[in-house]
Structures are given as structure tokens and as C-alpha cells.
């Protein structure tokens, strides 16, 4: 669609601009401010330059949290994206079955995040939880509060439970925009199941898959509440992801300078990685068409 040049459109955008400036720019400037200053209390601050950034970038603690975070997001994407596509392909296309599937699958997405944590905390407990009790009855040693690997499995399975539906719904939306005629043509040509997926279904899903990958990456990279409720970042530091570590530093220890530097580095990493995903996926899109 050809858009008209019209500078007056700024008036329509102004409310959003002011609101976001208030709720994003002012706080962000506060963070920038803290990141280059130190304080001895009494509201006296002095300039320290890049000291906090150097400290954060060289600290073992930050490296550990970043490593765990990257591993977590990689596992999440590797499981949820293929699983979501597969389930979307198998879903009924229309009728009450489709509506029922959509409603039931969307349900976990609307549960408050701390309740998701609570649900899994209860579900995985050995004494009162269905999962924990069943595993114990089968003779499997499983304890998510003591063993790091078990904690990781619990957190990953919880996230798969919580968010795979988002990928399913996005892919389903892409698939339902394919006209029946395409499938009939493929049938007449005798196309294999794989060929139908590769040349008809996958291209239609590409745009929504981009959204799915971006959203899943961003949200898994910012995860806080669910693992915090279930494991509290433990055992030890095993499930202390970036947000958990940051909140610990900012609210728990009130280390304003390092926490602010941490925040900015964290934000830049999310922006950078999202940009990389976006560029790589849209570039491949350009080659194909």
C-alpha cells in the first residue's frame, strides 16, 4: 500500500511517544546514571566512568549467569519450535475440535507466572505432587531442590508446558491461511508428505515462525518468576538466570552501580541477539523468494 507523506501524523503518535518516554526513557536514564557513578550514601554520587562495566564484564558471577541463560534459551528454542510445528500440523483444521484445542492449549498462557511456578512446585514434589510421587514410585531418584540436573529438567519441562502453545497457535494461524486448493494440487501431483511440508506448509509458516522464534527467545531470555518460585535459583546457583541474578543484586544487596551496569549489558545483549535472529531469518527469506 502506498502511504501518504504527512507530518501531521506525528500528532497521532504523540501520546504513545510521551507515554513510552515517561515509562521507558526516564527509568532507562536513571539506570545509565547509576551505572557510571558510585555513592557513599547520603545521596552523594561521584563519577566512576566505566569502572562498573569493567567489573561486571570480568566477573565470574556474570559469566556464569550468562552461560546458564544462553544454554537455557538454546534448549527452549530447540524443543519448543519443532514440537510446536509438529503439533500444529497434527491439529484438526476446523469444527468444534479445533476450537476446543485452541482454548485448552491457550490456557497455560493466561496463568499468572508465579502460579505457573506454584503449579509445578506442587506437581513435582515427592510427597504431595503427582509427578514427583509417580517418579518416586517408579524408583527414579528425583529431587529438584537438591540435584542441579533435576532442577534444570523441571524448569525446562515447565517452560515447555507454559509456552509451547504459543508456537502452536502461531503456526496454526499460518497453516490455516493455506487454501485447500494447494493440498488438492499436491495430491494430484502425487507429492510426498515431506514435499507438502517443505514447499507448501513451511513457506506459509515462515513469517509467523519468525515471530515465534523472536518472542520465545526474548521471553526465555528474560525469564524470572517461574524458576524463581520453583527453585529460587538453586540448588546453589544452578538455575540462577540473568534476571534472577540481577534482581538479587539490585534489590537484595542494593549494589546500585554494578546492578545498573549489569542491566545495560543485559538489555544490549537481548537487543543484539534479537537483531541477529531477525536479520538472519529475514535474509534467508529474501534468498528463497
Amino acid at each position, binding site marked *: *500500500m502506498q*502511504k501518504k507523506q*504527512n507530518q*501531521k*501524523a*506525528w500528532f*497521532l503518535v504523540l501520546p*504513545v511517544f510521551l*507515554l*513510552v518516554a*515517561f*515509562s*521507558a526513557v526516564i*527509568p532507562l536514564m*536513571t*539506570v545509565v546514571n547509576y551505572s557510571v557513578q558510585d555513592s557513599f550514601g547520603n545521596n552523594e554520587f561521584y563519577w566512576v566512568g566505566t569502572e562498573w562495566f569493567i567489573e561486571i564484564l570480568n566477573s565470574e558471577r556474570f559469566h556464569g549467569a550468562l552461560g546458564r541463560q544462553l544454554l537455557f534459551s538454546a534448549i527452549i528454542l530447540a524443543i519448543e519450535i519443532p514440537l510446536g510445528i509438529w*503439533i500444529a500440523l*497434527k*491439529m*484438526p483444521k476446523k469444527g468444534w475440535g479445533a476450537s476446543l*484445542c485452541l*482454548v*485448552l*492449549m*491457550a*490456557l497455560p*498462557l*493466561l*496463568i*499468572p507466572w*508465579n*502460579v505457573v511456578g*506454584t*503449579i509445578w512446585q*506442587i506437581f513435582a514434589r515427592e*510427597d*504431595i505432587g*503427582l509427578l514427583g*510421587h509417580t517418579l518416586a514410585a517408579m524408583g527414579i531418584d528425583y529431587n529438584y531442590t537438591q540435584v542441579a540436573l533435576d532442577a534444570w529438567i523441571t524448569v525446562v519441562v515447565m517452560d515447555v508446558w507454559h509456552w509451547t502453545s*504459543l508456537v502452536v*497457535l502461531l503456526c496454526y*494461524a*499460518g497453516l490455516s491461511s493455506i487454501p485447500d486448493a494447494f493440498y488438492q494440487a499436491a495430491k494430484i501431483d502425487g507429492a510426498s508428505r515431506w514435499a507438502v511440508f517443505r514447499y507448501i506448509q513451511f513457506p506459509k509458516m515462515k513469517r*509467523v515462525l519468525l*515471530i515465534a522464534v523472536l518472542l520465545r527467545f*526474548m521471553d526465555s531470555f*528474560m525469564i*524470572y*518468576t517461574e524458576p524463581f*518460585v520453583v527453585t529460587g535459583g538453586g540448588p546453589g546457583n544452578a538455575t540462577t538466570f*540473568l534476571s534472577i541474578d*540481577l*534482581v538479587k543484586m*539490585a*534489590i537484595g544487596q542494593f549494589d546500585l552501580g554494578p546492578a545498573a551496569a549489569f*542491566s545495560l549489558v*543485559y*538489555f544490549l545483549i*537481548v*537487543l543484539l541477539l534479537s537483531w541477529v535472529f531477525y536479520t538472519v531469518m529475514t535474509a534467508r527469506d529474501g534468498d528463497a523468494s
Partner: protein
Amino acid sequence: MKNIRITPTLYIIFLMLPIYWLLTMALKTNTEILGGFSLWPADPTLANFRTILTDPSWYNGYINSTIYVALNTVISLLVALPAAYAFSRYRFMGDKHLFFWLLSNRMAPPAVFVLPFFQLYSSIGLFDTHLAVALAHTLFNVPLAVWILEGFMSGVPKEIDETAQIDGYSFGTFFARIFTPMIASGIGVAAFFCFMFSWVELLIARTLTSVDAKPIAAVMTRTVSASGLDWGVLAAAGVLTIIPGAIVIWFVRNHIAKGFALGRV
């Protein structure tokens, strides 16, 4: 084609099991929960729900959450509607940069904003009000609402705007009487998303409130950290937080797929 599809069925069972478990616990007494293991409540009781619905410190949590979620949805939609229209219809100085700057706020980890938000809203005297949480949540809801609405609006042919102008409608009347009804489903979907992300968020909501506007999610965490854990009441509270979401999904079920694709299919 078989009638019962195995993959979606298994997936839904996987999704429902933990929710079922929460529900059974909500219907058990605390003694029964801790006393032994059973797949369903031997003697279903509504006592846990009664505790929540009669204790102000519990049910006020639900009221507070509902108020700030509603406020947030209204604010987000009111500012996002004109902006989305501008982005979908006009080119203007810095439009692309502005659009991406808005979206970049969706990528900001809430943990980054916790402390500055606390200081900002304390300094302007909004700490512990519903408005503070509603405004803070616009950080991620406004970009999303603009994005979704822009997608839906771009699907409406531009000729409609021009015809209305020729027919003598003022911009205001056109927008309210003709354009808004045409993108009603888009507005519904955007409202759904604002509701969803504001309802599920805990970190910011908890930081910006202490007593008067304390959300239900924060009330629940307080109970978790208390020494005598009342699992039954906790489970009942969890069940009650799921219900509003379930109702909202039921209303938007026909638009949900398109909505999750942000109007871009």
C-alpha cells in the same frame, strides 16, 4: 483421517495434568493433602475457596489485580489506536525509527526496570496505587498493542478513508463511527493481549505496591514464604487466578489464532 488425533490429545493431556492436580488439591483439606497420596479428593470440600472469598486480604488481591489490568488495557488501547493508524496510513519523519524504538521496549527485561520504576513512581507519589502498575505495564503492552493494531489496520483498504472524506465525514466521526467497527476484532485481540500480559506479570506489580494495590500474585507469594504452608488455600487461590483467563479465551477463541500471529497472516 482418524477421529481422535493422537498428538494433540497427548499434548492436551500433558497440559491439563498439572492443572488437574492443582484443582484436586484445592478441593482437599490440608490434612488430606499431607496425610497420604490419592488421585482425587476423597471428600471434596469448598472450604479453601470459602477462606479466600471471605478474607479481605485475599479477595482484595483479586480486586486490585482486576483494577490495574483494566486500567492498563484502557490506557494502552487509547494511546495505541491513533498511533497505529498513523503508522499504517502515513509516512512521516522518523516513522520507522520510532516503530522499532517502540518494539525494542518489548525486549527490555522487566528486571532491568524494577529499581528505576520504584524510584520514579515513589518520587511522583504514585507508589502503591493501581495507576502506577497500570502505567508501568504500558512499557510492554503499548508496543504490542501498536504492533497488533497496525497489522489489522493495514488490512483495511485505504479507499475507505478517502471515500469517507469525500462523503464529508470529519476525521473524528470517520474514526469512531466507520473505522473502529471495521477493526473491532483487532481491538478485541489487542485488548486480549494487554489483559494477558498485565494479568500474568508479577515482578513489576509486586515492586510497585505494598498494601493498597497489592496484586493477587503477590499475596500468594507471601503465603508461600510463611512457615505453616497451607497448600489447599494456595491451590485454591491458583485456581481462581486461572478462571478470568479461561473466560477471556472463550470469548476470543475465534480470533485467537489470527491474534497470536499479531494480525500478520
